[in-house]
């Protein structure tokens, strides 16, 4: 089981910035905790997310959904993460993404989460999932930071 090997691997040699485990005993439902990357507005936050793998994984990508409220251009209001590598494989009908940027079976939980962490540090405002966040990120950094800081604070208190 590809997924399971990876999980034990991750628990022995954890990767920087996140921790991953199973939600229950279902190997297709993962719980991850993303540690707000340092030197970003998200620093200090603990962002919980669920990764739901389809049965035909790795042919198709998992869905990643934050359980913690997070204000970010590429995370929609339901917490769903919208980054190109989590999009179904193939050509983008809108011509935004190349197929090489989208889901490919060589991606792993680790590469996904590293992408998500880099996404936190460097939002992609070209195809935002949260328009307000993208607008603030682009035009009103102060407001953006303030709202993110609110999320960070909430993420800390909800676990203590």
């Amino acid at each position: 089981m590809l997924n399971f090997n990876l999980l034990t691997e991750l628990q022995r040699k954890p990767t920087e910035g996140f921790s991953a485990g199973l939600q229950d005993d279902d190997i297709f439902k993962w719980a991850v905790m993303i540690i707000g990357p340092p030197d970003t507005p998200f620093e200090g936050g603990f962002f919980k997310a669920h990764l739901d793998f389809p049965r035909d994984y790795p042919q198709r990508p998992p869905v990643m959904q934050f359980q913690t409220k997070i204000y970010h251009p590429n995370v929609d209001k339901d917490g769903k993460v919208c980054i190109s590598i989590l999009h179904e494989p193939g050509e983008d009908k809108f011509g935004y993404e190349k197929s090489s940027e989208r889901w490919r079976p060589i991606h792993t939980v680790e590469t996904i989460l590293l992408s998500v962490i880099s996404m936190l540090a460097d939002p992609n405002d070209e195809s935002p999932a949260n328009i307000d966040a993208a607008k603030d990120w682009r035009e009103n950094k102060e407001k953006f930071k303030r709202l993110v800081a609110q999320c960070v604070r909430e993420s800390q208190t909800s676990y203590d």
Partner: protein
Amino acid sequence: MSSQGNKILDVIVKTPKEKQTISIHENATILEFKEAVSLQFGAPVDQLCLIFAGRILKDSETLSQHSIKDGLAVHLVIKSGTKAQTATPSETTGTTTQNTPPMQQQSEGTQQQFPVNFGIDPSTFQNMHQYMQQQLTSNPDMLRQMMDNPMVQSMLNNPDLMQQLIGSNPQMQQLMERNPELSHMLNNPEMMRQALEMARNPSMLQEMMRSQDRAMSNLESIPGGFNALRRMYSDIQEPMMNAAQEMNEQMRSSYTNPGSNPFSSLLGGAGTQTQPQSQQPSSSPSSTPAGTSPVPNPWENRSTAPGSTSTGMFQSPGMQSMLQQLRENPQLMQDTLQSPFVQNMMTQMMNNPQLMQQMLANNPLFNNDPQLSEQIRENMPNILRQMQNPQMQQIISNPQAVQAMLQIQQGFQQLSHAVPSTGNTPGSTTSTTTGTNTTTSSGTGSTTTTTTSSTSPQQQEQFNQLMSQMMQAMTANNQQQQSNLQPEVRFRTQLEQLNAMGFVDQARNLQVLSATGGDINAAIEQLLR
């Protein structure tokens, strides 16, 4: 939990910076575990946050509850008291939230005030500069637009000029002396071009920045890498910044005090015989905003020192190759002709035949052919008189008019070829010359006819040739540019707009745009049909 079978576990605890192994019995609570961690990492228990398998471990829970086993790794985040203030903006922002709105309003207010303040206070120039930089970095479109401006492009495409500009900054020179690699880089036109190309392409720039960030952080994690980076920063980046700042200051001081214009080297130190700006022709709507901004205008500042001619300016390699490019690119020529400061320059030249002569003598177009330049010089007063006419200026800057002229000209040539016998008689010579001259001047036909017919027929012949050559060159370029020079380029902005609206079929867009002559509304209608 009972404490039977006290098996000792070795749990790896990992922070972003370090990794330590902590031995603890398997039934320990998280709080006990934290105490052990606290000892090893030297941080108070209440600042520790342990994460395992995607969950934050709570004090009351136990290791076995989370099935933390021997050899597994737990993430540790130390919410350090000192760092928390800076790192976690949460607490501070909580209190400042109420203060932020007025501050924001203030900053927005100053931004809005800017255009009003232009030219009032010298310090605003610096502000404006900063503002511009901010805008440029936050708005890639603007940068791209600026970069796409033909004038800027020609300047950037011109390695000589760039080198001159860079070389004229003393701090930059120092820097280049100290770092030969850097000077090599700056002197390498190909490199410069690449860098500029990069700057013009926002996605490429972004991509580059991103991969550079990655590379930097990779470098940082190499032993000694951080020091190398720091050295690099102090060796290169800071002097570079200083140089740029120096330049800013120069610009600013030249803004307040025209005496120390950084462009003075371009002008060769000798003032041009420029006239006061009041003589600027009121014709031609300005297409480029260049003349309206308070940026020091290199053409208008040297208003004193009459009697000397500006050899330095036209002989500088930068200027030479700029002229060359002007010749090669009619679109640029047009744009330049329409920009206010060139108009200004033209008037000045007209009022100053000497300057014109000087220019012609140095112009690569003419100085290859002494006969030609001789011709031109003799006919200079006429040409100048023609040029002075605003109508004429409009005609020159109108490609269609130029084309029409060429057609007439060709007609006359054909006529003289077809009926060669008439070509030898003095009468017909005059008639052709009159014809051609009318074509070149159109609006001022009557004056030129009289002036040219007073010169000898041979001269007229040569003058005709010259004129027709010039015209041909201009129209040939124009035609090429108008028709062949890819519609992609001509309709680039429209194409981008269409793309943004969701019309992604590039070929169809082009076709429609060509059909509508670039009218985007009409194009959309056609596309939707």
